């Protein structure tokens, strides 16, 4: 940015501090923008001119996009001038008449009727910003009631030039991507360490997914991040392609080729959402709802812990440790299942790594206990379904009938309860409680994969207290434990 003598420029305070540290007193005096500011408060914009500006960040600029489209639709004759430190998401937008970089010449403020600056709207810690989607916050800043605006119009839209699509066409082969590939775009790092998802977990996810047929993974980042991103994959994996040489706009153009996008809370979420791409958002300090609510085909993984969401915008790590400990609740399995869920939704086929989850358990030997006149409960059935069971599982990817384990069941007793595959210490109390859900004369069926003889004996011993053992089997080859007990009258 070059400044001309005698001109005045509009810039954010922190940017001014940076320039001042370089140019010193050569920069001249600074005034608060309020001295020339004519704020827009929802007036009729017919034949009027409006200038709005915001420094950044890239993701936040996306929230401005739907508001500008709404204004231009409502007042087709109005003139909209926009300035931003990160203008890439607004490029080629037909709604914008003039687009400038920040800092901009203050002369641009003179020939417009109204001004509107967007600093500190979502950074504020108001209760509204914690519950309201960022786009709705921007709408309300323009004094527009966004309640009646359809969700589709609150989604940002991206506009690409012919040349940009041509560039994409030429670039993809250089990255080793052809039409048959299933391309996964992964944004690894955010601008704030607080929002960064743990590297090791990402590494494992990439390791598993990159072994799938025709899958290509593009790591999105900047050239300065080369060293960091190289920590996200092992050696020279041909299916993982670091795309670090592209600027922000080109990264956005590349998004149009992705079949699925995985990202923590960054601009990539907004770019993928704007293009209706299947999207997985890894959230912690912020709830995904206030960033992703209006997107189609998207999944937000939100840890619910005592301090999350903390709504921190800091450029520091979490006070409780780095990476933020709330991310410990998002497991590698959760991400893998989310990826497969979206892939299955659009292509109708699963990834190979899903075999263990998709495997149908062999319950033929105990099925006779499940054929009561009434439906029974089944805990942790995964993808297994049976005409006579009500499936209970907190994992929503399996689409269980009951996904909240704290829900009260409509009935107090069931003719049978099938407990499958989860006897970790965390679930012990749940296992104990399932016994109470069996009606007198009903059956408790325990089916555990990856079991051992000790577990088999422990379950049998446990059944001795209050249940009559009807069937027990341990298959040492498949390591499957099956035990059935009947509750006496």
């Amino acid at each position: 940015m070059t400044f001309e003598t005698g001109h005045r420029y509009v810039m954010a305070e922190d940017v001014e501090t940076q320039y001042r540290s370089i140019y010193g007193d050569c920069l001249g005096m600074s005034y608060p923008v309020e001295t020339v500011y004519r704020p827009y408060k929802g007036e009729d914009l017919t034949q009027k001119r409006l200038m709005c500006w915001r420094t950044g960040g890239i993701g936040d600029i996306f929230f401005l996009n739907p508001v500008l489209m709404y204004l231009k639709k409502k007042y087709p004759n109005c003139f909209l001038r926009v300035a931003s430190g990160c203008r890439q998401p607004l490029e080629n937008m037909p709604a914008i008449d003039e687009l400038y970089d920040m800092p901009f010449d203050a002369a641009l403020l003179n020939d417009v009727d109204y001004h509107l600056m967007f600093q500190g709207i979502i950074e504020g810690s108001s209760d509204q910003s914690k519950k309201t989607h960022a786009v709705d916050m921007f709408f309300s800043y323009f004094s527009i009631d966004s309640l009646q605006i359809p969700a589709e119009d609150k989604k940002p839209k991206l506009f690409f030039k012919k040349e940009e699509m041509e560039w994409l066409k030429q670039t993809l082969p250089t990255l080793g991507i052809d039409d048959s590939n299933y391309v996964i775009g992964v944004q690894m790092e955010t601008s704030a360490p607080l929002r960064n998802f743990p590297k090791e977990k990402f590494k494992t996810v990439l390791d598993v997914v990159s072994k799938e047929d025709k899958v290509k993974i593009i790591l999105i980042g900047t050239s300065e991040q080369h060293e960091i991103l190289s920590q996200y994959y092992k050696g020279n994996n041909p299916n993982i392609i670091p795309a670090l040489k592209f600027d922000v706009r080109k990264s956005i153009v590349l998004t149009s080729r992705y079949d699925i996008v995985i990202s923590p809370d960054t601009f990539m979420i907004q770019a993928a959402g704007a293009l209706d791409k299947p999207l997985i958002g890894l959230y912690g300090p912020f709830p995904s709802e206030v960033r992703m609510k209006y997107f189609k085909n998207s999944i937000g993984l939100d840890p619910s812990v005592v301090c999350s969401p903390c709504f921190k915008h800091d450029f520091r790590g979490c006070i409780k440790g780095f990476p933020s400990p709330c991310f410990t609740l998002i497991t590698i399995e959760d991400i893998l299942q989310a990826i497969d869920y979206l892939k299955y939704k659009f292509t109708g086929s699963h990834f190979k790594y899903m075999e263990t989850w998709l495997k149908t358990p062999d319950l033929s030997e105990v099925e006779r206990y499940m054929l009561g006149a009434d439906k029974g409960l089944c805990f942790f059935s995964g993808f297994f379904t049976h005409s006579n069971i009500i499936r209970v599982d907190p994992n929503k990817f399996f689409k269980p009938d009951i996904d909240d384990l704290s829900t009260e069941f409509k009935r107090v007793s069931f003719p049978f309860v099938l407990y499958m595959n989860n006897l970790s210490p965390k679930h012990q109390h749940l296992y104990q409680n399932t016994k109470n859900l069996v009606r007198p004369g009903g059956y408790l069926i325990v089916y555990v994969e990856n079991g051992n003889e000790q577990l088999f004996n422990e379950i049998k011993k446990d059944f001795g207290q209050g249940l009559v053992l009807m069937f027990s089997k341990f298959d040492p080859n498949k390591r499957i434990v099956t035990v059935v007990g009947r509750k006496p009258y």
Partner: protein
Amino acid sequence: MAESIELLSLRSAQQGQILDQYRMNMYNTELRLSLLVKIMEEKGVLTQGEFEKRWPIFLKNDVGVLGPDGIMEGMLKINFYDGGVK
């Protein structure tokens, strides 16, 4: 900790401000912790209600640690979004 902060090279005035803020927060946290210890010594065990009343910010920021299995106490919410319909 203080030494490692000093070792960081300051690239801009903005980063300097951030570091100052960080130092201040560290100081505040330590101060609150020492006060908490003092209260606990004086009053014996603090009830949850008293604790929350006195130190709401402390509670919000500093409680909630990793469990024995390395996972924070809580649960994961999986939210499906499809064009404004949750």
